[in-house]
C-alpha cells in the first residue's frame, strides 16, 4: 500500500514537474464557416493538429499555425486567417 502510494506520488510529481518546466506551446479546433483569428480558435485548431499522425501534413499545419500566431501577435488578422486557412487545408488532407 505504502509502495503504491509512493509510486503514485513519484509518477504524478514527475509528470507535473514536466508540465511546469515547459513553456506553453502555441494554441488550436475550427470550422471553416466560423474560423476566426482568436485564442479560442487557435487553441481548437492546435488540438486538432495534435491528434494528426506524424507526417508532412502535420508539419505543414504546425508551421502555418506558428505563423498564424505570429500574425495575431502583430495584430495582422487577415494574415493570421490566411495561415489558419492553410493549416486547416493541411489538416484535412
Amino acid at each position, binding site marked *: 500500500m505504502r509502495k503504491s502510494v509512493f509510486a503514485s*506520488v513519484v509518477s504524478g*510529481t514527475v*509528470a*507535473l514537474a*514536466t508540465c511546469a518546466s*515547459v513553456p*506553453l506551446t502555441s494554441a488550436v479546433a475550427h470550422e471553416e464557416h466560423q474560423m476566426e483569428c482568436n485564442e479560442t480558435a487557435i487553441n*481548437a485548431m492546435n*488540438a486538432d493538429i495534435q491528434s494528426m499522425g506524424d507526417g508532412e501534413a502535420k508539419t505543414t499545419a504546425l508551421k502555418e499555425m506558428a505563423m498564424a500566431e505570429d500574425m495575431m501577435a502583430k495584430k495582422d488578422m487577415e494574415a493570421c486567417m490566411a495561415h489558419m486557412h492553410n493549416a486547416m487545408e493541411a489538416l484535412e488532407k
Partner: protein
Amino acid sequence: MSASKITRYWLIAASVGAALLAVIGAASLAIYAGTYNFAADIPHTGPVYWLLETARERSIAVRAADVVVPDDLGDPKRIASGAGQYAEMCSFCHLAPGMKRTEISRGLYPRAPELRRGSDLTPAEEFWVVKHGVKMTGMPAWGVTHNDEILWDVVAFLRKLPELTPDEYQALVKSAPKTHDEMMQEMESRPMDHEGH
C-alpha cells in the same frame, strides 16, 4: 573501502535524496496551487501530450497482445452488422464518411480520431479499446454493456471504413441485419460472452 570514499558515497546519496525531495516538494506545491490547466479547450503542452500519448499507446499495445482475433473479420455480415452499431454508438464522436463535425467531436479533448481516415491500431488493439475504453479521453468501455461478438462486428467494420464513400457508408448502415436496439435486446436475452481480454 577507505573512510573518504564512504563519506563521498554518503554525500552523493544525500544530494540525490535532497534533489528528489525538492522536485517532489515543488511538484506537490504546483499541484496544490492548481498550476496545470485541465480545461479541454487548452491543448496540452507538447511534452505532456507526448508523454500521455506514448503511455496510452504502450498500455494498449501490451494489453492487446493476448487478444485472439477472429478469422472472419472480412465476413460481409459482420461488417454490415458493425456498420449499424458504429452509426449508433460511435459516429457522433468519431464521425463517418460524408458527416460534418458534431458539437461533441469539436469539443472533446483529446480529439476523438476520425476513423474514416484510418487507424494505426491493429484489430486486437481496436477491440481492446472498444471493449475497455480509454481513461480521460471520453472513450467509454463498451464491454460493460455489449458482448464480444458485437464489439468484433464493430472492429470488422472499422477495417472497411476508410475505403467507403458517403453513399457506400449509408448503404452499409441500412443493410445492417439488426438495429442497435434489436441487438441489445437479443444480447440481454443471452448470457454475456466475455472471451476476449
